[in-house]
Protein backbone atom coordinates (compact mmCIF):
# COMPACT_ATOMS: atom_id res chain seq x y z
CA UNK A 1 0.00 0.00 0.00
CA UNK A 2 1.02 3.61 -0.53
CA UNK A 3 2.55 5.61 2.30
CA UNK A 4 1.33 9.06 3.25
CA UNK A 5 4.65 10.75 3.87
CA UNK A 6 3.23 14.14 4.81
CA UNK A 7 -0.02 16.06 5.14
CA UNK A 8 0.45 19.77 4.60
CA UNK A 9 -2.01 22.63 4.92
CA UNK A 10 -1.17 26.20 4.10
CA UNK A 11 -2.47 29.53 3.03
CA UNK A 12 -1.58 30.48 -0.54
CA UNK A 13 -0.37 34.02 -0.92
CA UNK A 14 0.14 34.93 -4.58
CA UNK A 15 2.47 37.82 -3.68
CA UNK A 16 5.13 35.54 -2.15
CA UNK A 17 7.13 35.01 -5.33
CA UNK A 18 7.33 38.70 -6.12
CA UNK A 19 8.13 39.66 -2.50
CA UNK A 20 10.80 36.99 -2.13
CA UNK A 21 12.60 37.79 -5.39
CA UNK A 22 12.45 41.59 -5.24
CA UNK A 23 15.49 43.64 -4.31
CA UNK A 24 16.43 47.15 -3.26
CA UNK A 25 13.61 49.64 -2.82
CA UNK A 26 11.16 47.15 -4.27
CA UNK A 27 11.77 44.61 -1.50
CA UNK A 28 9.11 44.84 1.22
CA UNK A 29 10.34 45.01 4.82
CA UNK A 30 8.72 41.69 5.73
CA UNK A 31 10.30 39.76 2.83
CA UNK A 32 13.31 38.34 4.69
CA UNK A 33 11.22 36.97 7.54
CA UNK A 34 8.72 35.54 5.06
CA UNK A 35 11.47 33.81 3.07
CA UNK A 36 12.94 32.34 6.26
CA UNK A 37 9.56 30.93 7.27
CA UNK A 38 8.88 29.49 3.83
CA UNK A 39 12.35 27.95 3.69
CA UNK A 40 11.73 26.19 7.00
CA UNK A 41 8.26 25.11 5.89
CA UNK A 42 9.68 23.74 2.61
CA UNK A 43 12.03 21.53 4.58
CA UNK A 44 9.02 19.78 6.16
CA UNK A 45 8.06 18.47 2.73
CA UNK A 46 11.60 17.82 1.53
CA UNK A 47 12.34 15.55 4.50
CA UNK A 48 9.17 13.55 3.77
CA UNK A 49 10.72 12.51 0.45
CA UNK A 50 7.46 12.20 -1.53
CA UNK A 51 7.06 10.60 -4.96
CA UNK A 52 3.71 12.17 -5.83
CA UNK A 53 1.69 15.15 -4.59
CA UNK A 54 -2.09 15.29 -4.18
CA UNK A 55 -2.79 19.01 -4.40
CA UNK A 56 -6.06 20.43 -3.02
CA UNK A 57 -6.98 23.91 -4.17
CA UNK A 58 -9.71 25.99 -5.77
CA UNK A 59 -9.89 27.53 -9.22
CA UNK A 60 -10.33 31.31 -9.06
CA UNK A 61 -12.69 31.63 -12.04
CA UNK A 62 -10.01 30.73 -14.54
CA UNK A 63 -11.16 27.55 -16.26
CA UNK A 64 -14.10 26.64 -14.02
CA UNK A 65 -17.06 28.91 -14.71
CA UNK A 66 -20.61 29.48 -13.52
CA UNK A 67 -22.19 27.79 -16.56
CA UNK A 68 -20.83 24.44 -15.41
CA UNK A 69 -19.67 24.55 -11.80
CA UNK A 70 -18.46 21.37 -10.10
CA UNK A 71 -18.36 21.26 -6.30
CA UNK A 72 -15.42 18.84 -6.19
CA UNK A 73 -13.28 17.97 -9.20
CA UNK A 74 -10.27 15.70 -9.69
CA UNK A 75 -7.85 16.31 -12.54
CA UNK A 76 -6.91 13.24 -14.56
CA UNK A 77 -4.38 14.23 -17.19
CA UNK A 78 -0.78 13.37 -18.03
CA UNK A 79 0.25 17.02 -17.81
CA UNK A 80 -1.02 20.31 -16.42
CA UNK A 81 -0.17 23.71 -17.76
CA UNK A 82 -0.42 26.28 -15.03
CA UNK A 83 -1.05 29.92 -14.25
CA UNK A 84 -2.95 32.45 -16.28
CA UNK A 85 -2.37 35.80 -17.94
CA UNK A 86 -4.21 37.64 -15.17
CA UNK A 87 -2.03 35.96 -12.51
CA UNK A 88 1.07 36.94 -14.45
CA UNK A 89 -0.32 40.46 -14.70
CA UNK A 90 -1.32 40.94 -11.08
CA UNK A 91 1.12 38.75 -9.16
CA UNK A 92 4.06 38.21 -11.51
CA UNK A 93 3.51 34.44 -11.47
CA UNK A 94 5.29 32.53 -14.26
CA UNK A 95 3.72 30.05 -16.61
CA UNK A 96 4.43 26.54 -15.27
CA UNK A 97 4.16 22.97 -16.49
CA UNK A 98 3.60 20.00 -14.21
CA UNK A 99 3.36 16.28 -14.76
CA UNK A 100 0.21 14.48 -13.74
CA UNK A 101 -0.21 11.07 -12.14
CA UNK A 102 -3.10 9.52 -14.03
CA UNK A 103 -3.04 6.22 -12.15
CA UNK A 104 -3.62 7.89 -8.79
CA UNK A 105 -6.18 10.28 -10.33
CA UNK A 106 -8.11 7.33 -11.73
CA UNK A 107 -7.93 5.53 -8.38
CA UNK A 108 -9.25 8.52 -6.45
CA UNK A 109 -12.06 9.07 -8.96
CA UNK A 110 -13.21 5.46 -9.00
CA UNK A 111 -13.05 4.93 -5.27
CA UNK A 112 -14.31 8.40 -4.45
CA UNK A 113 -17.38 7.82 -6.63
CA UNK A 114 -17.93 4.44 -5.02
CA UNK A 115 -17.65 6.03 -1.57
CA UNK A 116 -20.52 8.43 -2.32
CA UNK A 117 -18.64 11.54 -3.55
CA UNK A 118 -19.94 12.46 -7.00
CA UNK A 119 -16.59 13.81 -8.15
CA UNK A 120 -16.34 15.69 -11.41
CA UNK A 121 -13.23 15.15 -13.48
CA UNK A 122 -11.17 17.02 -16.02
CA UNK A 123 -8.86 15.58 -18.68
CA UNK A 124 -7.52 19.01 -19.63
CA UNK A 125 -7.03 21.28 -16.66
CA UNK A 126 -4.97 24.42 -16.52
CA UNK A 127 -4.30 24.91 -12.84
CA UNK A 128 -3.99 28.25 -11.08
CA UNK A 129 -2.22 29.81 -8.15
CA UNK A 130 -4.13 27.88 -5.49
CA UNK A 131 -1.94 24.94 -6.54
CA UNK A 132 1.09 26.68 -8.02
CA UNK A 133 1.67 28.84 -4.92
CA UNK A 134 2.37 25.78 -2.77
CA UNK A 135 4.50 24.32 -5.57
CA UNK A 136 6.53 27.55 -5.53
CA UNK A 137 6.83 27.61 -1.75
CA UNK A 138 7.19 23.89 -1.01
CA UNK A 139 8.64 22.28 -4.15
CA UNK A 140 9.99 24.99 -6.44
CA UNK A 141 11.70 22.37 -8.61
CA UNK A 142 8.15 21.41 -9.70
CA UNK A 143 9.54 17.97 -10.45
CA UNK A 144 6.93 15.67 -8.91
CA UNK A 145 3.74 14.42 -10.55
CA UNK A 146 0.54 15.84 -9.11
CA UNK A 147 -3.12 14.97 -8.72
CA UNK A 148 -5.12 18.21 -8.54
CA UNK A 149 -8.29 18.23 -6.46
CA UNK A 150 -10.41 21.35 -6.88
CA UNK A 151 -13.12 22.47 -4.46
CA UNK A 152 -15.76 25.16 -4.79
CA UNK A 153 -15.12 27.71 -2.04
CA UNK A 154 -16.01 30.60 -4.29
CA UNK A 155 -19.43 30.43 -5.87
CA UNK A 156 -22.63 29.87 -3.85
CA UNK A 157 -24.22 27.43 -3.42
CA UNK A 158 -21.25 25.60 -1.93
CA UNK A 159 -21.08 22.28 -0.10
CA UNK A 160 -21.39 22.33 3.68
CA UNK A 161 -18.18 22.64 5.74
CA UNK A 162 -18.73 19.14 7.09
CA UNK A 163 -18.63 17.80 3.54
CA UNK A 164 -15.12 19.16 3.10
CA UNK A 165 -14.07 17.28 6.25
CA UNK A 166 -15.68 14.09 4.97
CA UNK A 167 -13.94 14.34 1.61
CA UNK A 168 -10.63 14.90 3.39
CA UNK A 169 -11.16 11.77 5.46
CA UNK A 170 -12.06 9.82 2.32
CA UNK A 171 -8.95 11.03 0.47
CA UNK A 172 -6.80 9.96 3.41
CA UNK A 173 -8.34 6.49 3.43
CA UNK A 174 -8.19 6.06 -0.34
CA UNK A 175 -4.53 7.04 -0.56
CA UNK A 176 -3.66 4.69 2.29
CA UNK A 177 -5.42 1.87 0.45
CA UNK A 178 -3.88 2.66 -2.94
CA UNK A 179 -2.00 -0.48 -4.02
CA UNK A 180 1.30 1.20 -4.74
CA UNK A 181 4.69 1.53 -3.13
CA UNK A 182 4.73 5.26 -3.74
CA UNK A 183 5.12 7.90 -1.07
CA UNK A 184 2.30 10.43 -1.27
CA UNK A 185 2.21 13.91 0.22
CA UNK A 186 -1.25 15.45 0.45
CA UNK A 187 -1.07 19.24 0.30
CA UNK A 188 -3.98 21.66 0.48
CA UNK A 189 -4.22 25.41 0.55
CA UNK A 190 -6.97 27.68 1.74
CA UNK A 191 -7.45 30.93 3.56
CA UNK A 192 -7.85 32.30 7.02
CA UNK A 193 -9.99 35.45 7.25
CA UNK A 194 -9.85 37.20 3.91
CA UNK A 195 -11.68 40.02 2.18
CA UNK A 196 -11.50 40.50 -1.59
CA UNK A 197 -13.29 43.33 -3.33
CA UNK A 198 -14.92 44.58 -0.12
CA UNK A 199 -14.45 47.39 2.41
CA UNK A 200 -12.15 45.37 4.68
CA UNK A 201 -9.61 44.41 2.00
CA UNK A 202 -5.88 45.18 2.08
CA UNK A 203 -5.79 46.33 5.69
CA UNK A 204 -2.68 46.12 7.89
CA UNK A 205 -3.76 42.64 9.05
CA UNK A 206 -6.31 40.08 7.97
CA UNK A 207 -9.87 41.38 8.36
CA UNK A 208 -10.57 39.31 11.50
CA UNK A 209 -7.48 38.56 13.65
CA UNK A 210 -9.67 36.90 16.30
CA UNK A 211 -11.00 34.40 13.74
CA UNK A 212 -7.43 33.82 12.55
CA UNK A 213 -6.26 33.07 16.07
CA UNK A 214 -9.04 30.54 16.58
CA UNK A 215 -8.57 29.03 13.14
CA UNK A 216 -4.84 28.47 13.65
CA UNK A 217 -5.61 26.77 16.95
CA UNK A 218 -8.28 24.52 15.37
CA UNK A 219 -6.00 23.53 12.50
CA UNK A 220 -2.88 22.96 14.62
CA UNK A 221 -4.77 20.45 16.77
CA UNK A 222 -7.09 19.31 13.96
CA UNK A 223 -9.95 20.18 16.29
CA UNK A 224 -12.67 19.41 13.77
CA UNK A 225 -15.43 19.36 16.36
CA UNK A 226 -14.78 22.89 17.62
CA UNK A 227 -14.31 24.25 14.12
CA UNK A 228 -17.54 22.76 12.82
CA UNK A 229 -19.39 23.96 15.92
CA UNK A 230 -18.49 27.57 15.10
CA UNK A 231 -18.29 27.60 11.34
CA UNK A 232 -21.17 27.48 8.85
CA UNK A 233 -21.73 28.59 5.29
CA UNK A 234 -23.52 31.65 6.69
CA UNK A 235 -21.01 32.46 9.44
CA UNK A 236 -18.00 32.39 7.12
CA UNK A 237 -19.09 35.68 5.51
CA UNK A 238 -18.46 37.42 8.85
CA UNK A 239 -14.65 37.20 9.14
CA UNK A 240 -14.25 38.37 5.53
CA UNK A 241 -16.10 37.87 2.28
CA UNK A 242 -13.58 35.32 0.92
CA UNK A 243 -13.21 33.32 4.13
CA UNK A 244 -15.00 30.27 2.70
CA UNK A 245 -11.48 29.31 1.63
CA UNK A 246 -11.15 28.12 5.22
CA UNK A 247 -13.14 25.08 4.11
CA UNK A 248 -10.05 23.82 2.28
CA UNK A 249 -8.33 23.84 5.68
CA UNK A 250 -11.26 21.83 7.04
CA UNK A 251 -10.70 19.32 4.24
CA UNK A 252 -7.05 19.05 5.22
CA UNK A 253 -8.01 18.57 8.89
CA UNK A 254 -10.06 15.63 7.65
CA UNK A 255 -6.97 14.30 5.89
CA UNK A 256 -4.80 14.82 8.98
CA UNK A 257 -7.29 13.05 11.26
CA UNK A 258 -9.44 14.34 14.08
CA UNK A 259 -7.53 15.73 17.07
CA UNK A 260 -4.13 14.90 15.59
CA UNK A 261 -1.66 17.59 16.59
CA UNK A 262 0.35 19.00 13.70
CA UNK A 263 4.07 18.25 13.87
CA UNK A 264 4.92 21.68 12.51
CA UNK A 265 2.99 24.93 12.98
CA UNK A 266 3.99 28.41 11.95
CA UNK A 267 2.27 31.64 10.98
CA UNK A 268 3.10 35.12 9.80
CA UNK A 269 0.93 38.16 10.31
CA UNK A 270 1.00 40.07 7.03
CA UNK A 271 -0.95 42.92 5.53
CA UNK A 272 -4.27 41.83 3.99
CA UNK A 273 -4.23 38.29 5.41
CA UNK A 274 -2.40 36.04 7.85
CA UNK A 275 -0.17 33.29 6.53
CA UNK A 276 -0.24 29.91 8.29
CA UNK A 277 1.70 26.68 7.73
CA UNK A 278 1.00 23.20 9.09
CA UNK A 279 2.61 19.78 8.55
CA UNK A 280 1.64 16.38 9.88
CA UNK A 281 3.68 13.18 9.53
CA UNK A 282 1.19 10.30 9.81
CA UNK A 283 4.01 7.78 9.81
CA UNK A 284 6.48 9.78 11.84
CA UNK A 285 8.83 12.57 10.88
CA UNK A 286 11.78 10.26 10.45
CA UNK A 287 10.08 7.75 8.16
CA UNK A 288 11.68 9.25 5.05
Amino acid at each position, binding site marked *: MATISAVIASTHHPFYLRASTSAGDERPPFADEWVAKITAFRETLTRANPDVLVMVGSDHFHQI*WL*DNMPQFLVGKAPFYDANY*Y*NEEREFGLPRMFLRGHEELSEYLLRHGLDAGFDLAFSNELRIDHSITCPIITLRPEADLPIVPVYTNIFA*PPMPQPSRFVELGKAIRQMVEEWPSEQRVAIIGTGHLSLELG*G*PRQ*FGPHGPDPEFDRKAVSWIASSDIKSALAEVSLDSLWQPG*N*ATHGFMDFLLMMGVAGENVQADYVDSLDLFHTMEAYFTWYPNGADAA
Partner: protein
Amino acid sequence: MSKYLLNKFLFTVDRDPELVERYREDPRGTVAWWEADVANVIIGCHEGERSTWLKFTDEERAALAGHDYVALFGLGAHPFLTLTLFIALFERDYAEPLAFQREYAVKLSHWSLPYPDIAT
Protein backbone atom coordinates in the same frame (compact mmCIF):
# COMPACT_ATOMS: atom_id res chain seq x y z
CA MET B 1 -31.36 41.36 -12.28
CA SER B 2 -28.66 39.31 -13.94
CA LYS B 3 -25.75 38.87 -11.57
CA TYR B 4 -24.62 35.97 -13.71
CA LEU B 5 -24.30 38.21 -16.76
CA LEU B 6 -22.43 40.90 -14.82
CA ASN B 7 -20.01 38.22 -13.70
CA LYS B 8 -19.74 36.87 -17.25
CA PHE B 9 -18.74 40.32 -18.50
CA LEU B 10 -16.10 40.72 -15.78
CA PHE B 11 -14.84 37.17 -16.38
CA THR B 12 -14.53 37.36 -20.15
CA VAL B 13 -12.93 40.81 -20.15
CA ASP B 14 -10.48 40.08 -17.34
CA ARG B 15 -9.02 37.03 -19.09
CA ASP B 16 -8.29 38.85 -22.37
CA PRO B 17 -5.48 41.46 -22.43
CA GLU B 18 -6.89 43.24 -25.49
CA LEU B 19 -10.35 43.47 -23.97
CA VAL B 20 -8.95 44.85 -20.71
CA GLU B 21 -7.40 47.75 -22.64
CA ARG B 22 -10.48 48.24 -24.78
CA TYR B 23 -12.70 48.40 -21.70
CA ARG B 24 -10.32 50.87 -20.02
CA GLU B 25 -10.29 53.20 -23.03
CA ASP B 26 -13.92 52.90 -24.12
CA PRO B 27 -16.13 51.45 -21.39
CA ARG B 28 -19.47 52.47 -22.91
CA GLY B 29 -18.63 51.19 -26.38
CA THR B 30 -17.12 47.98 -25.03
CA VAL B 31 -20.20 47.21 -22.92
CA ALA B 32 -22.53 47.86 -25.86
CA TRP B 33 -20.46 45.66 -28.20
CA TRP B 34 -20.13 42.94 -25.58
CA GLU B 35 -23.86 42.82 -24.80
CA ALA B 36 -24.68 42.58 -28.51
CA ASP B 37 -22.01 40.09 -29.56
CA VAL B 38 -20.74 38.15 -26.54
CA ALA B 39 -23.37 38.08 -23.80
CA ASN B 40 -25.18 35.08 -25.28
CA VAL B 41 -22.12 33.06 -26.29
CA ILE B 42 -22.05 29.83 -24.26
CA ILE B 43 -18.39 29.52 -23.39
CA GLY B 44 -18.18 25.72 -23.71
CA CYS B 45 -20.25 25.52 -26.92
CA HIS B 46 -19.73 26.24 -30.60
CA GLU B 47 -20.43 29.93 -31.22
CA GLY B 48 -23.37 29.05 -33.44
CA GLU B 49 -25.15 27.52 -30.46
CA ARG B 50 -25.96 30.63 -28.48
CA SER B 51 -28.33 31.50 -25.71
CA THR B 52 -31.10 33.91 -26.66
CA TRP B 53 -32.19 35.55 -23.42
CA LEU B 54 -29.30 37.20 -21.63
CA LYS B 55 -29.27 40.99 -21.26
CA PHE B 56 -28.35 43.60 -18.69
CA THR B 57 -30.78 45.73 -16.75
CA ASP B 58 -30.33 49.47 -17.30
CA GLU B 59 -28.73 49.77 -13.87
CA GLU B 60 -26.24 46.98 -14.58
CA ARG B 61 -25.34 48.37 -17.99
CA ALA B 62 -24.77 51.82 -16.47
CA ALA B 63 -22.56 50.41 -13.69
CA LEU B 64 -20.33 48.65 -16.21
CA ALA B 65 -20.29 51.57 -18.64
CA GLY B 66 -19.38 53.91 -15.79
CA HIS B 67 -16.50 51.76 -14.44
CA ASP B 68 -18.51 51.96 -11.23
CA TYR B 69 -17.14 49.22 -8.96
CA VAL B 70 -19.07 50.59 -5.98
CA ALA B 71 -22.34 50.09 -7.87
CA LEU B 72 -21.22 46.63 -9.03
CA PHE B 73 -20.64 45.63 -5.40
CA GLY B 74 -24.15 46.79 -4.54
CA LEU B 75 -25.61 44.83 -7.44
CA GLY B 76 -24.07 41.59 -6.15
CA ALA B 77 -21.40 41.12 -8.80
CA HIS B 78 -18.80 38.65 -7.56
CA PRO B 79 -16.33 40.85 -5.64
CA PHE B 80 -13.30 38.79 -6.65
CA LEU B 81 -14.06 39.26 -10.34
CA THR B 82 -14.67 42.97 -9.92
CA LEU B 83 -11.53 43.51 -7.87
CA THR B 84 -9.26 41.59 -10.21
CA LEU B 85 -10.43 43.37 -13.34
CA PHE B 86 -10.41 46.82 -11.77
CA ILE B 87 -6.87 46.34 -10.46
CA ALA B 88 -5.89 45.58 -14.06
CA LEU B 89 -7.69 48.71 -15.25
CA PHE B 90 -6.57 51.29 -12.72
CA GLU B 91 -3.72 50.17 -10.45
CA ARG B 92 -1.29 51.60 -13.02
CA ASP B 93 -2.61 55.12 -12.36
CA TYR B 94 -1.47 55.13 -8.72
CA ALA B 95 2.14 55.75 -7.67
CA GLU B 96 2.11 53.85 -4.37
CA PRO B 97 1.77 50.06 -4.23
CA LEU B 98 -1.75 48.99 -3.16
CA ALA B 99 -2.98 52.61 -3.19
CA PHE B 100 -5.76 51.75 -5.63
CA GLN B 101 -6.81 48.70 -3.62
CA ARG B 102 -6.99 50.78 -0.43
CA GLU B 103 -8.98 53.54 -2.09
CA TYR B 104 -11.32 50.85 -3.40
CA ALA B 105 -11.89 49.67 0.18
CA VAL B 106 -12.56 53.21 1.40
CA LYS B 107 -15.11 53.78 -1.34
CA LEU B 108 -16.98 50.69 -0.13
CA SER B 109 -16.71 51.64 3.54
CA HIS B 110 -20.38 52.60 3.80
CA TRP B 111 -21.17 48.88 3.53
CA SER B 112 -21.45 46.71 6.63
CA LEU B 113 -22.51 43.09 6.98
CA PRO B 114 -24.44 41.51 5.47
CA TYR B 115 -23.03 42.48 2.09
CA PRO B 116 -25.19 42.13 -1.04
CA ASP B 117 -25.95 38.52 -1.91
CA ILE B 118 -23.57 37.20 -4.60
CA ALA B 119 -25.34 33.89 -5.19
CA THR B 120 -26.16 33.36 -8.86
